[in-house]
């Protein structure tokens, strides 16, 4: 089985916060990391390979330093890795990103049985790249899979809808985007870490791909971020009850809420 995984390098947003006084976004030295649920995508691919044999190829589109997430993928067990990188790809929104990824997939032979993506990135978390890639390749997809099984030559995928779940048989080739609940990603193995030093990151640039210049990068991106504003925690006129014994505080709150008919 030929399996592909798309991964993205992201900023670790859990470290960031907005300073309520200045309204500035404080990065707090947030690192660039492999997008968390892309690890779930890679884990699903590696498990499938263990079951059926074959290869796991990992691609990312990004600047040269994004190669780091490819090497991390190798240390987890990926067979070969491709960095899709070119200044012309810069500023891409999800449509231009998906267009470029789809072009790279065609370049790699377009013969993958399954393509795994993360459900969403933690920095802009649109969850759009997976389904967009599928539609560009004219194949099926299931978003936000919480279960994936390979049974009797069939892909059985579970997706959560509301609080319930749907179990689907998925026609291949197809894209599956991995929710965090899909599996528990493995840690890099010693072997993998050693292999990381010997692995060549293959590069693909715009001239290597069959792309129309007006469909890539900023130019090929319909959505434009016109501006960003920090979300400053809202400050309201409020009733503060401080320095009171619990019973008195409770009585004061109950009285205040009764006034506005909450109780």
């Amino acid at each position, binding site marked *: 089985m030929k399996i592909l995984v798309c991964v993205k390098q992201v900023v670790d*947003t859990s470290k*960031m916060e907005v300073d*309520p006084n200045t309204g500035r*976004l404080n990065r707090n030295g947030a690192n660039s990391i492999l997008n968390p649920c892309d690890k779930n995508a890679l884990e699903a691919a590696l498990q499938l390979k263990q079951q059926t044999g074959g290869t796991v190829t990992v691609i990312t589109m990004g600047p040269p330093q994004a190669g780091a997430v490819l090497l991390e993928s190798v240390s987890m067990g990926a067979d070969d890795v491709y960095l899709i990188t070119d200044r012309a790809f810069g500023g891409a*929104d*999800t*449509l231009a990103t*998906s267009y470029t990824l789809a072009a790279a997939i065609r370049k790699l032979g377009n013969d993958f049985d399954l393509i795994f993506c993360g459900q969403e990135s933690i*920095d*802009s*978390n*649109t*969850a*759009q*790249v*997976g*389904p*967009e890639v599928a*539609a560009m390749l004219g*194949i*099926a*997809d*299931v*978003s*936000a899979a919480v279960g994936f099984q390979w049974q009797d030559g069939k892909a059985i995928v579970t*997706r959560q*809808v*509301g*609080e319930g779940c749907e*179990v689907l*048989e*998925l*026609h291949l080739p*197809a894209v599956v985007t991995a929710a965090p609940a899909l599996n528990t990603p493995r840690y890099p193995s010693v072997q993998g870490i050693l292999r990381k030093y010997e692995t060549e990151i293959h590069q693909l640039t715009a001239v290597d791909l069959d792309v129309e210049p007006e469909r890539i990068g900023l130019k090929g991106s*319909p*959505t*434009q*971020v016109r501006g*960003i*504003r920090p*979300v400053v*925690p809202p*400050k*309201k006129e*409020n009733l*503060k*009850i*401080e*320095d009171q014994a*619990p*019973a008195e*505080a*409770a009585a*004061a*709150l*109950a*009285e205040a809420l009764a006034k*506005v008919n*909450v*109780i």
Partner: protein
Amino acid sequence: MDFSDYKGIYVIAEVRDGKVEKVTGELLGQARKLAEKTGDPVEAVILGSGVKERAQDLIAYGADVVYVMESPLLAHYDGMAYEKELGALLKEKKPSAILFAATPYGRDLAPRIASAVVCGVTADVTELSVDEKTGLIVWSRPAMGGNIMADIISPQYRPQVGTVRPSTFDLPEADASRKGSVVEVPVTLTEKDLGTILKEIIPAPKEENPIEEAQIIVAGGRGIHSEEEWAQLHELADLLGGSVGASRPICELGWEPHSAQIGQTGKSVAPHIYFAFGISGAMQHICGVKADIMIAVNRDKNAPIMEMADYAVTADLKDFLPAFIAEVKKIQEK
């Protein structure tokens, strides 16, 4: 670029178990507001099996025209099939803008449509407006872990598209006497067009008081230190006719099911009243809360939630909760 032949604000209806989901009404309400500014008609598309009778529901919430696409093959959401039918209709109709619900289905369908039609999609929009000068729709969404709000436009491409999370906007009053036209669109799907075969639906355990519909939510976090104390939240919720919600750590402890989790990886809620007992107010939690009145009780007067709350009580919950329940009972008995 000339976009003068792109007209209409479209809403893609979401149907489950034969009923139009509440979020579709919320989107139609927003579409009407946008349409008042842009002068567009509001049009809705409903896909499914046996959904024609539901067209009037969409008109009641504000649609002027409803396109109905009926087929047994559309009974369940399938990305390939829905993209094929809806994509063909949208390419022909050329909407100016399209609103999808940011539900598991809508979040899959909107990007598939974007690839087919070649347009952008703004994900998980929480604010909508029209730029006075250009007439462009401004789609605003939180990003970077909820720390920033991005204002997004699509000046060079049509349609302009966004997905909107349920409970973000108010449900307008339905007007059953409203008039609109219903257009049946022929569906040409065959089995071969489907990407998936539905094998099984595993129903959710029936929730008694789903928090997304609750007017009063009694939510708690790590400031509550035992399951016995936690039971008091249920007692209070029962007294007030509300539902119990929780921060993520509480659900991880198993004191509440995941269905009670509020926040980025849980539910978005929009109650009238939100009690936050022992919740610090992390962005990942608060981004899921849009309450008219927020009440926070915390022993740390500097906890972030205390800044956001309308009523902020500094107290230790161990003593405060039983005292507060007693006070509520006293008032209710009067």
